[in-house]
């Protein structure tokens, strides 16, 4: 084997004055970066395999470990950067498609950082959410054309038959992450947190382990192109059903769960033999048109007796507005759109980093299109893909989303350090792994607590944001783009986003 030209990405430094040779790092690194030499009584670190996940540094009791980017500099070149050269070395050595995990790390403009929120001053009072009620509850699902009421005075009854709705205590749900791509304990943490906060987690295409049936009322069950784990029982367990057409990190690409991850429990849940690859085709082979999609939507509605809203999730692509319109017309109750920064357990990096459009533009385009067509009320709009904090959420809702899906931030709450090695199955934080030795590292009690804390914190912040604007319900912010102003955006961007530049009143 010829020598690899790939140098280590990171440099692991050990402060010998602080290292007590307790070997916690040795035991914690699943990439075998650290080792103990008994002859010399020395702990050594080999930077070659370091993923930069900080597990060792986080657990080191004396803070003796530091991980930094390798100082080995390439000759400066704006075109042939170190990343570009390394990618070529890697492909020249392997001849394969480069895999990666998590959302794109490319510096696409983050429009959230170019949108600022409004607040009340003098002419309209702001509200103190600590003193006055503030409503974050929202309902997802098809809304009626009009409400028909019967009776008079105090005795009024709603005559209109409402379509099934999902009640969210906060407009944030956990995005689809399958049992298989993430561990049992990670799923358990998400499910518990969703129940605790009154929102939903999503099974992804992993099926629903029987242990999670108790969380059914807080579960969105997914039906994707591989149909893994989809049974009548499964559909009935969930509060809603999501048809997954695409994913922001890999639009147009199917899924692949390597056979090594398919252990007994995952095999049972996905209904595939132990050790076989779980391959989700790129398209649904029974959906080649909006009409075909309608058939699946209604098949699922029929199967669940029209009691559950049906979501359709697509990746944000160039023609997203027209596609979303078709999806609504096909009968979906909720349209989910996943932007280019959306995450994944495994995707070709060339796809992840180059396909799709930013979620901000997609939300605005879809909301606008549905309004123009007079069908915005026929479906709720859920945005996904790289929501980093409560301000991003508030801005998405102001742009027109009904709620958002978060996944990467949820993983980070559970300990993920976004090292992008999910696809290796060696997650040191016990999240994106099925190795029982590693899975134990995520205590579901801690995971659920941290997730609940995150959602609670974001909810408090959103209430503060709303209060500052002088509105007391999330519904009053929805699609209210006058609460947004653009800073440093081009005219076309602002036109698509439907926002005014900062400094312009109207």
């Amino acid at each position, binding site marked *: 084997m010829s020598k690899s030209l790939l140098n280590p990405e990171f440099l692991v430094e050990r402060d010998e004055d602080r290292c*007590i040779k*307790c070997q*916690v790092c040795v*035991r914690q690194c699943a990439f075998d970066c650290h080792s103990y030499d008994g002859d010399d009584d020395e702990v050594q670190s080999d930077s070659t395999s370091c993923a930069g996940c900080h597990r060792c540094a986080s657990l080191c*009791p*004396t803070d003796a470990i530091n991980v930094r980017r390798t100082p080995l500099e390439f000759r400066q070149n704006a075109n042939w950067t170190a990343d570009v050269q390394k990618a070529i070395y890697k492909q020249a050595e392997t001849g394969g498609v480069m895999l990666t995990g998590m959302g794109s790390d490319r510096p696409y403009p983050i429009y959230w950082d170019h949108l600022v929120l409004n607040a009340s001053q003098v002419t309209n009072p702001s509200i103190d959410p600590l003193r006055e009620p503030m409503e974050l509850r929202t309902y997802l699902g098809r809304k009626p054309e009009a409400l028909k009421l019967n009776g008079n005075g105090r005795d009024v009854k709603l005559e209109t038959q409402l379509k099934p709705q999902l009640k969210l205590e906060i407009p944030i749900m956990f995005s689809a992450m399958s049992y298989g791509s993430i561990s049992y304990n990670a799923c358990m943490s998400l499910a518990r947190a969703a129940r605790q906060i009154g929102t939903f987690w999503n099974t992804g295409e992993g099926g629903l382990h029987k242990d999670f049936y108790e969380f059914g009322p807080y579960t969105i069950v997914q039906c994707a192109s591989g149909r893994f784990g989809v049974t009548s029982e499964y559909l009935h367990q969930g509060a809603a059903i999501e048809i997954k057409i695409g994913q922001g990190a890999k639009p147009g690409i199917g899924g692949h769960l390597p056979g090594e991850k398919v252990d007994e429990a995952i095999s049972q849940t996905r209904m595939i033999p132990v050790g076989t690859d779980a391959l989700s085709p790129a398209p649904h082979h029974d959906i080649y048109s909006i009409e075909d999609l309608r058939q699946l939507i209604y098949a699922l509605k029929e199967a669940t007796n029209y009691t559950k809203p049906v979501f359709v999730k697509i990746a944000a692509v160039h023609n997203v507005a027209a596609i979303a319109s078709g999806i609504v017309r096909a009968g979906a109750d909720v349209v989910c759109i996943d932007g280019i920064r959306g995450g994944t357990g495994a995707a070709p990096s060339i796809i992840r980093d180059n396909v799709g459009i930013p979620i901000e533009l997609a939300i605005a385009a879809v909301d606008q299109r549905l309004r123009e067509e007079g069908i915005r009320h026929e479906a709720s709009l859920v945005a996904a893909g790289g929501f980093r904090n409560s301000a991003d959420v508030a801005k998405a809702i102001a742009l027109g989303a009904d709620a958002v899906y978060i996944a990467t931030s949820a993983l980070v709450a559970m300990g993920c350090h976004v090292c992008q090695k999910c696809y290796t199955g060696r997650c040191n934080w016990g999240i994106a792994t099925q190795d029982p030795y590693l899975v134990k*590292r995520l*205590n579901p009690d801690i995971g659920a607590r941290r997730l609940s804390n995150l959602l609670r914190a974001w909810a408090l912040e959103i209430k503060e944001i709303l209060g500052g604007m002088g509105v007391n319900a999330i519904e009053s912010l929805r699609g209210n783009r006058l609460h947004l102003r653009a800073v440093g955006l081009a005219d076309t961007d602002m036109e698509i986003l439907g926002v005014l530049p900062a400094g312009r009143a109207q």
Partner: protein
Amino acid sequence: MKRIYAKEDVCIGCRLCEVHCLVQHSKSRKIIKAFKEEFPRAMARVLVEELGKTSFALQCRHCDEALCVEACMTGAMYKDEKTGAVLHDADKCIGCWMCIMVCPAGAIQRDQRKEKIASKCDLCAGQEMPVCVANCPNEAIVFEER
């Protein structure tokens, strides 16, 4: 009484409990000093048992009817009447190792620093929370009444 319990389903085998136990029972109670300057080095009274993916932290169970107390001929091993903890009086210990022989949990060790002293968990006497519990990164050791 409040006891230390291990949760093997979330024990990650990092052995930080051992590290912190050692520090707690060192002279300086400073982690770097305890490991690098104090010789003979203090001993951890908790031991992580590990086989494959299963691991858990084991220390004295502070049994209600403690065999080690019964077996101790000098009275070095005794039960604290107030707390119920099984404690060890090093001054009385003659190192006959009967306690080690009878302990069903294997939680007593020979103190390597001296020739004839047993070493065991003292529930971090005087501290509200034993250090192994307080420093377990995954809450795999708990201190509670059951």
